[in-house]
């Protein structure tokens, strides 16, 4: 390892080191596309880690569950309607998602509605 790289490892923040590890892990999964390269409305399979997740309660009793997933190249939000909780989906969990990403919000952030998921 070059000295420069070594120095970089020493000065990098834990978050940067985590992101690097995550990129390495995700690029090793076959058939998965880097999230940053997924085009809007394209059906794709991505792999990543749950950064955070949220339950959105609704008074009418139809809540949904959202998980923000990143692989270090980009972020997608997986949204499962009608679910309050899915066992195994929580922060720090790595998973494979398959579905169609729709842009949402003012900045292009992809939301995959009810994706197929596979816990890793």
């Amino acid at each position, binding site marked *: 390892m070059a000295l420069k790289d070594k120095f970089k490892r020493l000065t990098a923040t834990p978050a940067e080191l985590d992101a690097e590890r995550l990129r390495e892990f995700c690029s090793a999964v076959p058939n998965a596309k880097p999230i940053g390269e997924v085009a809007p409305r394209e059906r794709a399979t991505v792999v990543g880690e749950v950064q955070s997740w949220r*339950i959105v309660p609704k008074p009418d009793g139809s809540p949904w569950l959202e998980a923000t997933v990143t692989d270090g190249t980009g972020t997608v939000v997986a949204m499962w309607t009608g679910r309050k909780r899915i066992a195994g989906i929580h922060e720090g969990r790595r998973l494979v998602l398959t579905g169609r990403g729709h842009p949402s919000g003012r900045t292009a952030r992809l939301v995959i509605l009810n994706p197929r998921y596979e816990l890793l």
Partner: protein
Amino acid sequence: MYSAVKRFLVGRPLSTAELEHQRLPKTLALPVFSSDALSSTAYASEEILFVTAVGASSLALGLSALVPIALAVAILLAIVVTSYRQTIHAYPTGGGSYVVSRENLGRNPSLVAGAALLVDYTLTVAVSVSAGVAALVSIPTFRHLGDNRVGIALILLSIIGLANLRGVRESGAVFAAPTYSYVLLLSGLVFYGLAREFLGTPVPDVPLDPERFEGMSVFGGELGLFLILKGFSSGAVALTGIEAMADGVPVFRKPESKNAAITLTIMAVILGTLFFGTALLANRLRPYPSHEETVLSQMADAVFGQGALYLVFQLATAGILVLAANTAFADFPRVASIIARDGFLPRQLANRGDRLVFSNGIVILGLGAGTLITGFGGRTNALIPLYAVGVFTSFTFSQAGMVRYQRKWRRPGWQLRATVSGFGAVVTSGVLLVVAVTKFTSGAWVPLVVVPSIISVFLAIRRHYDRVDAALAITPEEVKPEPLNHTVVVLVGRIDRRALKALDYASSLRPNHIMALYIAQEEADREAIQAQWEAFGIAVPLEIKGSPYRELVEPVERFLEEIDQRWTNDTVTVVIPEFVLGKGVAGKWLFENVLHNQSALALKLALLYRPNTVVTSVPFHVDYAAPGGDADKAGTMTP
């Protein structure tokens, strides 16, 4: 508690309307403003001797040079006072050298004058307090305290500082007595002594103690022009008080200018007479420069004898020297406030404190003078060479400014007035040159270094204020309507009254997006909060974020970054629920506050510099001492 101590030491706050009553009548203004100048008679002769009677020279030569030097200083005094009377009339709102230079010469000269003044006022305090302590420890009973002069000086300094924090008027009343008694007693000493010398039985000479004499020889030796000029430079410090009077015009009762000019003249006459008289008497009594006992003390001992009169005289000397420091305390803050109002010093210095004095300036002056006293071991003659460079700089700029002023307005008789000011400017610039050259190696280089650095600080402060102003300025054309995307993030640690109150508050803001954020450290926590969220039926989405390194601040910051990426033009409000221990609790158990809100504090500090981020604390009052209210509702609860 702090406010009670402050109230006791400083007094009750004064309203702005009471400012007018802080004005001084002439009888009080004289001691307040002239003590600086008058008190220099206490050490000037000695300081001249410390230059002219030591080294290759001898005591006899030094004493013979004393009278001509004193005469020269008296003439210089007359010239400057004549010139300054015009300044006082031209600038009834305070014609300090800084103001006069700013109005007539422009920015940079005024900054030089201002910086020089600030340095000299600080030195006035240091020199006067040191000389006052020297007068005290000259008293035989107190002579053993000579080793503690720094400590005594610092105690005196803090007393003066406190008196000034109380206000000008009151300190004037407190300090009038020593000034008048000093003037009276010194006049007595000089006139009685001289009368005996010339008319009656001569006073016996001061017995020379070779152990304590700082010089080399008593007779013979040689005294060059350079040393005579250097001695003159030491004597010229007597003029520092004039600037103080011109600066302080607005503190006089109406009509300010007339009263100030009269007071200035009275002061000059007293100062000139006593200064010259002291030198003349010293010439006859042959006192010698010593670190143990001041020249004035030796003379008083010789004339009055070791009695009550001697004791009172020494105390009055110490008193007026303390007052001299007080003059600087009255004026340093005022000059600093004017400079601060122009944006060259921090704005805090421009504000009057709750006692209507410029409290911050007083504190800074006290600290500066304390540093000087400590650094120079409380010895007057180590500080004197630093002194007077600043005041003669400001004299020169001020009078040069007055020449410009007279030429600009051309009021009747302006030619004469311009000539007087011009002549004064030439003389003081000459003196400045003499002071700077003759005392350069023994200390005058210090102000020559310090003054430019202060000026660069002035300019840096001004540049900062200008930049901030430019960054904040906006024209109507620049305003573009862009809707704010407001996201409120409520930090939740667990579900309790405090958290629910914060959530209610957040909802009431009606932001574009609202969410609760929970930083999960362990799996069990996560499941628990999720279950509780459901049980309470909270309508706000709960976002759960992991903290792989068991931190709080870092994941919150990362989450806020994610939000920033999600929406454009967004403003994030982070709502932090906080405990406030009620009075019944906090009063009894002060330390209990330490048990709470520590992570909230860390978070606030971390988010302080984050752009577009508002941190809001929602307080929840806990008071378990009193029943009802929030008292028995604190803690976790059930749905």
